[in-house]
Structure formats: structure tokens, C-alpha cells
């Protein structure tokens, strides 16, 4: 595959960091897990104690970003450093789409994964970051397979479907996951002759389409994000076929964050077991308040940021 040959191969006994394999590998370790948005070291500890496989350090959760309006930027490095010190699980942080320097700052700080995220206000409306230039791995959002493959082509080692962040409404997460996974299945069943035309239609790198045709799956791990608010939501996304979930506002905007966090972790493991899901879903208090995406003006949708 073209993508892999771009990275140097370890053929002697010498050690190599920042390879494609170790970038994708960390995402593979997160599979079957829940990545939680946290805004303080205390919340990070609650998330870790609840069984989060990673935390996303940011200043405001998406529902507050949505409420406050204005320009949303990378968080204060001292706030991110406080979270890095508080927990032993991997820490992710967000850079604005196309903001190379925010990404450099996060890499320098030792953040484990950078989310080039539509939740923040884009810094470049034409170009995403060239993620091959970095040793730290990146996760990026997508609404369909073409967008996912463009990000992977730029070096993203981990993909999440966007959903609609800060709404507590799972409908967009479902739409985006079904779109991406449906397109993967379709490619697998296509005749090899049709792949170049498909690459043209999806505006996606041909080599990656060919790779999916051969393997029947995305070349990187795929999580779901944007609107998951209950354990049942998390289990739904897992049944649809994603490999893990990001929960933003859904935990710390619920009535009992620690209980909700633990329940979502359990539901992500036992996503296929309705008997367990009954117990997991009991007595959690109220979930975060939800927003109807259908009545939302297009320009308020975060998912349409990036391309």
C-alpha cells in the first residue's frame, strides 16, 4: 500500500519511533473503549477511575462551545499539562483544522494523540494539516468514506465519524457511521475495474480504495463521535460496527457523571448483550439535555466544517 511505503521500514536491529505502525497501533489499543472529554484534572481522574481508555483534554465541552459561540481554539497548554500529570491513560487534545502550529505545540507537550477537530473553529478552510510531518499520531472526523480517506491520505492514523457534537442527539452519529461502513461494504463487492471511477466520485486516493477492496475494512481504526449520551447510544454505535466511542458533553453534562461514565464503559464492552444492557442502563439519573438537529440552521452544524 502506498501509504505504508512512505514510512521507513525497520529492517535492521535499530529502533525507530513515529512509524505508521506505532501511530495506528495506539488507536488499536483503544478499541472497545470510551474516550471522554474532560476540562479539569479532577474530571480526568473521574474518567480514568470509571474505565475510560483515554481522555480528550479541552477547555469547554462541545455543548458549551456551541452555547458560547465565538472562536474556539486549542486549550491553554498549562490546562492540558495538568491533565497529563493527573492520569496515566493516554491524553488527547484538539487543534483547529489546518492549524499547523497548534499541532506543533501539542506534539511538543507530549500529547498522545491530536484531534484535528471540527469542534474548534477552522484555521484553514482549504487545507487540513499534513499529518505525515508529525511523529505524534492524529485522529480526524469524517461524514463519509471520501472524507475519511482524504484524512488518512494526509496521514491521519485514526478516524472518527463526526456526528453532531454537543447535541446529545445520536442521529448524526448513526448517519455518518452507516454511510462510512456502508461504502466500505460496497467497495468490497465492486469489480476492480470500477475502483478508479469510484475514487473520482468519492474524491479519495485510489490506493486507499484499492486497499479497502482487498481487505474489506478501513486501513485505520474507526470510532464514533458526536451525540452519544447514554449507554444504549454507545452500544448502538458498536452494533452498527464502529470500534469504540468518543463521548463529549454526554458524561460531564449528565446528572451523575461518574455513574454515567462507568455505565457507558460497560455498555461499550457488552454492546451485544441486552440482558447486561438492562442492568447497565438502570438508575443513571438524567442524561444531558438534547438538541433537535433537524431544526438546527446549517451554519450551526459543526460537522460541515472541514471537507
Amino acid at each position: 500500500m502506498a501509504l505504508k511505503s512512505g514510512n521507513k521500514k525497520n529492517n535492521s536491529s535499530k529502533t525507530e519511533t513515529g512509524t505508521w505502525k506505532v501511530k495506528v497501533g495506539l488507536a488499536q489499543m483503544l478499541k472497545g473503549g470510551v474516550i471522554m472529554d474532560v476540562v479539569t484534572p479532577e474530571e480526568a481522574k473521574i474518567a480514568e477511575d470509571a474505565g475510560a481508555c483515554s481522555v480528550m483534554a479541552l477547555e469547554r465541552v462541545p455543548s458549551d462551545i456551541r452555547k458560547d459561540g465565538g472562536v474556539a481554539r486549542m486549550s491553554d497548554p498549562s490546562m492540558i499539562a495538568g491533565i497529563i500529570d493527573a492520569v496515566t491513560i493516554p491524553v488527547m487534545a484538539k487543534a483547529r483544522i489546518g492549524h499547523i502550529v497548534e499541532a506543533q505545540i501539542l506534539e511538543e507537550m507530549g500529547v498522545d494523540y491530536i484531534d484535528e477537530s471540527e469542534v474548534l473553529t477552522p484555521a484553514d478552510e482549504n487545507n487540513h494539516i499534513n499529518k505525515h510531518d508529525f511523529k505524534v499520531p492524529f485522529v480526524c472526523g469524517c461524514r463519509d468514506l471520501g472524507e475519511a480517506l482524504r484524512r488518512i491520505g494526509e496521514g491521519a492514523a485514526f478516524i472518527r465519524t463526526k456526528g453532531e457534537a454537543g447535541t446529545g442527539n445520536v442521529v448524526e452519529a448513526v448517519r455518518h457511521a452507516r454511510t462510512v461502513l456502508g461504502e466500505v461494504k460496497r467497495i468490497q463487492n465492486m469489480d476492480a475495474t470500477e475502483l478508479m471511477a469510484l475514487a473520482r466520485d468519492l474524491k479519495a486516493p485510489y490506493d486507499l480504495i484499492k486497499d479497502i477492496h482487498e481487505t474489506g475494512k478501513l486501513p485505520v481504526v474507526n470510532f464514533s463521535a458526536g451525540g452519544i449520551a447514554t449507554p444504549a447510544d454507545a452500544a448502538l454505535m458498536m452494533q452498527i460496527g464502529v470500534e469504540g466511542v468518543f463521548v463529549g458533553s454526554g458524561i460531564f453534562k449528565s446528572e451523575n457523571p461518574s455513574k454515567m461514565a462507568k455505565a457507558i464503559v460497560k455498555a461499550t464492552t457488552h454492546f451485544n448483550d441486552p440482558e447486561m444492557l438492562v442492568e447497565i442502563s438502570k438508575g443513571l439519573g438524567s442524561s444531558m439535555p438534547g438538541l433537535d438537529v433537524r431544526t438546527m440552521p446549517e451554519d450551526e452544524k459543526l460537522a460541515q466544517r472541514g471537507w
Partner: protein
Amino acid sequence: MRHVGVLALQGDYAEHIAMLELNDATVSEIRMPKQLDDVDGLIIPGGESTTIVQLIDIYGFRDKLVSMANSGFPIWGTCAGMIVMADELTDDRPDPLKLMRIKVSRNAFGRQIDSFEEDLIFKGIDGNFPAVFIRAPIVIETSPEVEILSLVKQKTEMPVAVKQDNLLATSFHPELTNDSRIHKYFLSMIG
């Protein structure tokens, strides 16, 4: 045919399952303790050790795994799995199962930007083994009953693969490579 369980609470269990199936083993995902009664050996995969230990305790795996390990049941832990199997950690959390007489340091090489690949010599396997280390642990102390199978060169010459009778632990991830020799090694421990 050997029937192997892979602990499927969190982590890269699917990669282990794919590798075992390529080597003609029957595989089951293990999500509850009673499922352990049906298998001849267990892999504890890579993942986040705090998450995996949390779920081990919530679902009551701890006592059962300790007694099975003590009665000769083969278990192999990769990365987080090594942490789960350790006697003692340099951190105060998580609380490991204390199956193997080893002391383990978590995230021993640093953060993700320090994750690396290195070709290792592995006792009992010919030639180099392509090892992938992701926020990996190392073994910093062993008791005499623990056999050291491999040492890493990066930063420090410390053990990254150890065996104690029916128990095997590796700091790295053979399941992320195309090389199934260590999976075959574990299958031969099952018999």
C-alpha cells in the same frame, strides 16, 4: 484442536483472534468469567491496563484467573496484559492480578511519541522478531523462577518477554505484525 480464549473487555482482542485463527486454533471472545471454563488457554490483549483491570474486577474475573493460573492454565499477556499479570507495579494503580513474579514499570519508554519498533532476539525463535512497542511497559525485577526470553535495546537492556511455567508476558505486540511465531510459541505451551 486447541481452543483459546481472548479476553475481550477492551483493547486489540480482534487482532489476536485473527492471528490465532490463521494458526488453526478455535477462538472464543471472553467477556464473562464462566466462559473461561470452555477454553484451554487465555490471551490478555493490549489495551489500557486501568480499563481492563477495572472491568476484570467489575465482572469478577480476579479470583478465577488467579486460581486457574496457579493450577497450570496457560495465560499470555501482551503489553497491558503483562501489567495485568504482574506481581507489583511501580505505580499505585491499577491493582494487578499478581500471577507472575515480576515487577513492571508502566509507560517505561515515555509517551506516545516515544513508541517504537525494534527487531528483537527471542529465546526459542530463530532470527529476529519485529516487535512493536506502544506506550510499553518493561520488567524491572524478576524472581528466579521467571525465565527471561528477550531484552530490548532501546534506552535500557531490560526484559520485554518473560515466562514462568504456564505463564507468558510480552511488553510488545506480536498481534500487530504479520509474524505469528510467538502465537505459535504460546499455542505450543497449551499443548
